[in-house]
């Protein structure tokens, strides 16, 4: 039995009368790649914000890397990495400056910063571009860099909010190679996506409909359960029942 790093119990967020996330209960273990699926407006982002310590839940409990989402948000923030669907590096800073800045606000020492930035640039093969502005990089490269920056401070969990939006399939594949490499080192990956081929790459996925988790299992078992030939069909069967519109 592997160590559990994310554990939620009936986690709920209400905005007035609107229940954005309705009593979701799940757990994710160390090194797992957990896909968090759902149509737009299903409550994924709200759930993720609560897990990152950005938003206080209305009720229910959750612990991230052993820390409580109500009281220990500062500890949580030290132990997680985050990459959002929107591009999250500074375009008017060079690659190296971005790495140093994000390393800096995560409190890395000068020595660590130096080692990390060299290693990271070497891994991505960006040696000749290191001093160029991020705005000159193609989107796919930026996303890869963005991911590397998000795991630079060696977090226990990385939250990826639609990380591959707008990226071509080949680059997406390369991006997932980075994710696998991180997971192999024991980093837990929590990823939301709209691409069903990406859902297949996950160890386990959950599908949210109208604020509730309607299905949760490995991709192959889900296909079996819904007697569907592909994840696309599983998702469609579930999402069709949604009452909420965007």
């Amino acid at each position: 039995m592997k160590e559990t790093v994310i554990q939620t119990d009936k986690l709920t967020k209400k905005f007035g009368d609107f229940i954005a996330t309705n009593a979701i209960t799940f757990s994710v273990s160390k090194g797992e790649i957990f896909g968090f699926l759902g149509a737009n407006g299903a409550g994924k982002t709200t759930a993720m914000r609560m897990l990152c310590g950005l938003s206080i839940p209305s009720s229910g409990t959750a612990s991230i890397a052993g820390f409580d989402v109500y009281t220990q948000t500062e500890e949580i923030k030290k132990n997680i990495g985050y990459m959002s669907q929107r591009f999250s590096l500074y375009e008017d800073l060079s690659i190296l400056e971005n790495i140093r800045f994000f390393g800096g606000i995560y409190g890395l020492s000068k020595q660590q910063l130096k080692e990390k930035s060299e290693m990271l640039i070497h891994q991505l093969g960006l040696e000749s571009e290191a001093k160029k502005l991020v705005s000159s990089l193609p989107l796919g490269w930026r996303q890869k860099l963005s991911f590397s920056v998000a795991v630079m401070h060696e977090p226990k969990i990385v939250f990826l909010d639609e990380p591959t939006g707008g990226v071509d399939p080949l680059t997406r594949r390369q991006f997932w190679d980075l994710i696998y490499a991180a997971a192999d080192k024991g980093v837990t990956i929590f990823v939301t996506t709209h691409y069903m081929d990406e859902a297949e790459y996950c160890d386990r996925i959950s599908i949210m409909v109208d604020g509730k988790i309607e299905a949760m299992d490995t991709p192959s078992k889900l296909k079996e359960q819904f007697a569907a030939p592909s994840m696309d069909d599983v998702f469609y069967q579930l999402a069709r029942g949604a009452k909420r519109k965007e």
Partner: protein
Amino acid sequence: MKQFMSFVRKEFFHVLRDRKTLFILFGMPVVQILIFGFALTNEVKNSRILIVDQAHDESSKQLIREIEASQYFETENIVADFNQVEKVFKEGKIRVALVIPANFREDLLQNNAASLQLINDASDPNTATTLTNYISSIVLDFQMRNFPGGPKPIQIIPQLRMLYNPQLKGAPNFVPGVMAMVLMLICVMMTAVSIVREKETGTMEVLLVSPFKPLMVIISKAFPYLILSLINVTSILLLSVFVLDLPITGNILLLYAVSTLFIITCLSIGILISVRTDSQQVAMLISLMGMLLPALLFSGFMFPIENMPFPLQIISNIIPAKWYYIMVKAIMIKGLGFSAIWKEASILVAITLVILGISIKNFKIRLA
């Protein structure tokens, strides 16, 4: 602290790499000081005048020479026909016309009284009044020199002394005004826009997920602008001392202290705007229309507050620029010390605390 330093360094990269920002930051104060110093002056010079000389005698010619010799007027034409006046006015060539009637010299010598007619374009009343004064003093001068023996009416001559600004230069008025405006623009607009930009591009989320505290994010975003604004204050002061010959009569440290206070006020307004808005355009519009315009109108720099209707006078009290303007004038021009400005300073501190309080509260609501 180390986190703070990496943040501030990053912020400076943003500013230094954006040419538009750089230009606004450092070009604008220089341009404004130069424009106000050399282009926009209250003095009226080289106004075009039409002289209708119906007298054509020695006295009229002498008067015309004196008018031409003054730097205030430039003669458009000298004609004999009165009907020309309306025509030339309609062509928009002149601001003023002077009619010297026939028998001018004779009236002066024999009747001890002569009349002149001055026709003014009063669509700009201030200029018209000024020009009338100029002509009157030239005529008076002419009279005193040529007819010193004439009977004098009883005269009361006020002895004038212009305190703080004996030469009636514009600079003592506009340098403090430009300082208030520039600081308002840079601190409010630039902080607001730079924080909102992070929201727009999504980097704000990444910052909030990091262990760097949200309050620190805001402080480290505002801090670079405090430094840049102080550099601007310095450059404006240098320009006014060395280019406009306007010395700083008061304590320079006190001047910097009140400037820092005002900058902090402006930064907190900028932060408040950024907390309440989500797009750079909106932030910029609010800063310009909602902040810069009132600063311009209600600081007393362009329009005297005493002349405004009472409700507007009350409104002017909540405009931070007004208090800063009063203080800079007191220190820089009048050379007064802290005892003269403590009231204004405390009002500014109070305004700042209120605004900061509101923005921090709003910021927390957003996070929850």
